[in-house]
């Protein structure tokens, strides 16, 4: 009986998909004292960046013929320099149980490390379950420069991803089929929107999407989405804005 009454109560939590931008510490070689000195030199130059910055350790480029650095020692070096390693990217060589005992999550291989900056901006997609809660709050430090709104004047092509952290995205041209535009804030597209547009990706349900011609594969606000099939209504290929009413994604002619 007891358990049944509990189910009917209001839920205590919900899982939400979220994307945050993280920096990776890519180790090219390991030497404890040298690494320590170099990190400290960096920290002295960019102290604001190193205030408990969460990082992923990327050990994929360490020379394969050398012994692996002891994980606890590596973590200590990082933490001494005010870095906060939260996980290992593409871990194939350390024991998973060891990582777990040291509080590190294992992330997928960084197969896309050679991509351009636009594309890597959204590369890190931490598993929402594995992600420690303090990450979202502290990554803001990393992107704190200049205006947060981004204006693109050229078409976003198929296969390209653009993500604006903490701001709006304005595209003066088209967003091609197979392209993805994302922003923590609003998205404006002044050409045809043929790809995917995701506004309010970090949970802002007040974000909106505006476009001159709605031909999208998918639009989403704060995780609530409509796919192409549901969009092909009377608003198809018309100037439209999309916003959330409660949990319903509405489209209205501009």
């Amino acid at each position, binding site marked *: 009986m007891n358990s049944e009454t509990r189910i009917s109560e209001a839920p205590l939590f919900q899982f939400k998909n979220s994307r945050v931008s993280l920096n990776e510490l890519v180790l090219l070689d390991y030497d404890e004292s040298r690494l320590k000195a170099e990190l400290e030199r960096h920290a002295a130059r960019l102290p604001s960046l190193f205030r408990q910055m969460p990082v992923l350790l990327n050990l994929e480029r360490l020379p394969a013929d050398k012994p692996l650095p002891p994980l606890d020692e590596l973590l200590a070096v990082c933490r001494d320099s005010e870095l906060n390693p939260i996980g290992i990217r593409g871990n194939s060589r350390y024991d998973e149980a060891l990582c777990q005992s040291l509080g590190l999550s294992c992330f997928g291989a960084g197969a896309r490390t050679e991509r*351009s900056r636009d594309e890597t901006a959204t590369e890190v997609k931490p598993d929402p379950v594995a992600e420690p809660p303090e990450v979202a709050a502290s990554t803001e430090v990393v992107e704190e420069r200049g205006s947060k709104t981004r204006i693109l004047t050229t078409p976003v092509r198929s*296969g390209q991803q653009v993500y604006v952290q903490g701001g709006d995205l304005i595209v003066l041209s088209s967003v*091609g089929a197979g392209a993805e535009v994302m922003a923590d804030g609003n998205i404006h597209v002044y050409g045809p929107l043929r790809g995917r547009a995701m506004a309010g990706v970090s949970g802002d349900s007040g974000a909106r999407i505006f476009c001159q011609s709605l031909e999208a594969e998918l639009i989403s606000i704060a995780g609530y989405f409509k796919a192409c099939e549901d969009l092909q209504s009377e608003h198809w290929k018309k100037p439209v804005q999309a916003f959330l009413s409660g949990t319903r994604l509405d489209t209205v002619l501009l």
Partner: protein
Amino acid sequence: MAEIIVVTSGKGGVGKTTSSAAIGTGLALRGHKTVLVDFDVGLRNLDLIMGCERRVVFDLVNVINNEATLNQALIRDKRTEGLYILPASQTRDKDALNHEGVERVLNELSEMFDYIVCDSPAGIEKGAQLALYFADTAIVVTNPEVSSVRDSDRILGVLQSKSRKAENGEQVKEHLLLTRYNPARVQAGEMLSVEDVQEILAIPLLGVVPESEAVLKASNQGQPVVLDSESDAGQAYMDAIGRFLGEEREHRFLEVQRKGLFSRVFGRKG
């Protein structure tokens, strides 16, 4: 310094090699010293289209590996003055290409020629990326159908993010070359129109090459189609080259050709 032109498309089978051969030959016909470089290592075709397959001794990979000099590998075209071909290797794969090697070869070619036309392999992997990395200008070959247009859009994105020009904050000049265009099928609604394609890709139109029997015939004879000045495709390519060199030329072959009484009675040789 030569201008480096990459002929690319993303999708395979749209006419990259045919177009490379036509454009290279056309530029040489217009008096510019031109070299055609086949980047499709492992699937060497350009030499066949150019009809010089029996004269291939050394290739691009040999030059990159310093097994041959550029002069040994370059094949002089016998029909067109000022045209050379640097063939790809058929026995290797794309991994035989490397950044430094390609750069060195292009730099050397750059001092000898006015135009370097790079025939890119299909896809967006290493081979295609190396072919477009050093480009000053891209000619994006597209067929009037949705998958080809989508892939062209993708390759335009790659050009904007992974080329040397992009890395230096400049832009690769982009041109659209629409091939295998069939006005009758466009009219019947079976094929995308020039306007449809341009609307999606939003880059300047260099030319529209009609679907033509002359192209297949020319390929099989190892004769670039521009040398067949009677053919519609050959004329369309020469128009495109004229536009490339900055001339104003009206687009032809966009409408269904009405057969006149004369040609209906006597027929016309394609």
